[in-house]
């Protein structure tokens, strides 16, 4: 659901070592994904630029860039003029309410086509003999007397299996509840919108956490725009209009030339957010039950990495060293991976 309907930003310039490893692992895998799936996922490394508008932004971006470089993650600082050269529609007017004081650019970041990713994976998995049962909800997780997984109940009957991997994004709490587990997750609406299609005007992805919006242009020509979640827990798959107004006001502030663009449609998905804004990927207290959740507003970029790591964890019954820190238990031990404090807004 999320994978088929997101704004497709791919980047790996997260602050902490654990995050750098997991997101950069995914970024490496995006490179060969079209070949591996034999399906063009249209991964385009057009660069993701994050704008700095104040001294705090500049300091925290520099910190990110240094941390990223120590981890071998691509990220560089641009002056306002360099940012403008990289993204000509950008206004670097000194008279702006939030002038651009510089930017952090991850050149390897970019976008991919969300539908192609879902279709490509589905086709490749089917070719390997995986049965994909569509429009069939899991309604229960059956456990044996010793607590281990025995199988799942679905709308179309029971499937016996000693191992279950759950990747249910916004509905993860609901699925975990079926196994008697309570998770540190809250599900929020996240909206996005696209404009009418226009000729190529926008060469990269630009994010501004301070003015609070992000934008890119799809290969169909639509401007793809998003920002933060609605404020309350919801599974309704739609959010409020004032969030969209706020998002567009921010876009017009940074890109005055888009003031007269007409918006075509908006939509909302449900994102499962953890307290530290990092995913939970690994084993659960229930033997045979594995989980990949908590990617919140930013899990599309992790698709190939998350898939590989979940598969590894299920096959070996132990996590890969890259996802080993992303346990459920970190909320008990206090060993959080606090990208929430590091980034403050949507990924």
């Amino acid at each position: 659901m999320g994978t088929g309907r997101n704004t497709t930003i791919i980047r790996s310039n997260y602050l902490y070592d654990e995050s750098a490893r997991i997101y950069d692992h995914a970024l490496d895998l995006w490179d060969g994904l079209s070949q591996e799936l034999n399906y063009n996922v249209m991964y385009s490394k057009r660069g993701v630029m994050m704008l700095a508008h104040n001294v705090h932004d500049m300091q925290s971006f520099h910190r990110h860039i240094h941390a990223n470089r120590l981890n071998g993650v691509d990220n560089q600082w641009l002056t306002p003029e360099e940012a403008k050269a990289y993204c000509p529609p950008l206004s670097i007017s000194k008279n702006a309410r939030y002038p651009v004081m510089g930017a952090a650019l991850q050149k390897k970041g970019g976008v991919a086509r969300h539908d192609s990713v879902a279709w490509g994976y589905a086709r490749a998995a089917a070719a390997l003999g995986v049965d994909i049962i569509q429009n069939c909800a899991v309604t229960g997780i059956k456990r044996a007397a010793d607590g281990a997984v025995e199988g799942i109940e679905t709308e179309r009957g029971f499937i016996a299996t000693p191992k279950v991997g759950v990747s249910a994004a916004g509905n993860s709490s609901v699925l975990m509840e079926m196994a008697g587990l309570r998770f540190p997750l809250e599900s929020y609406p996240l909206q996005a919108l696209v404009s009418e299609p226009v000729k190529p005007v926008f060469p990269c992805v630009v994010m501004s956490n301070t003015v609070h919006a992000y934008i890119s242009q799809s290969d169909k020509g639509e401007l793809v725009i998003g920002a933060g979640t609605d404020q309350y827990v919801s599974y309704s798959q739609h959010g409020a209009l004032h969030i969209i107004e706020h998002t567009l006001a921010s876009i017009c502030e940074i890109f005055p030339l888009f003031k007269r663009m007409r918006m075509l449609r908006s939509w909302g998905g449900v994102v499962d957010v953890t307290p530290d804004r990092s995913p939970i990927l690994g084993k659960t207290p229930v033997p045979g039950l594995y989980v990949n959740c908590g990617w919140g507003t930013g899990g599309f970029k992790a698709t190939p990495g998350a898939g590989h790591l979940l598969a590894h964890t299920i096959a070996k019954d132990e996590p890969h060293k890259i996802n080993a820190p992303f346990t459920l238990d970190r909320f008990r031990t206090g060993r959080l991976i606090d990208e929430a404090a590091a980034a403050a807004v949507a990924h």
Partner: protein
Amino acid sequence: MLLIRCPYCEEERPEVEFSYAGEAHIARPADPSQLNDEQWAEYLFIRTNARGIHYERWCHRHGCARYFNAVRDTVTDKLQMTYKAGEPKPDAIGPSGGDK
């Protein structure tokens, strides 16, 4: 946008006047030093995240600035009722209806 009735102002006002403040009826531990790590995790991080009836806190930020509680169906986003902080947890009205 939600229309929310502030139980103090006794008025229905647009959501932009309010800020959401998370799940309701999570009591701060009476004797914090007695809690083990598991119980701290439960208190700090574990949430019901109900798909259906949800008890939650709101603050009338741009009005009376007071916190209160609400009962809302998270599938339809329909608010069932709001009530003052400190009042007992009421029963929800009927089944959530939308929990599919």
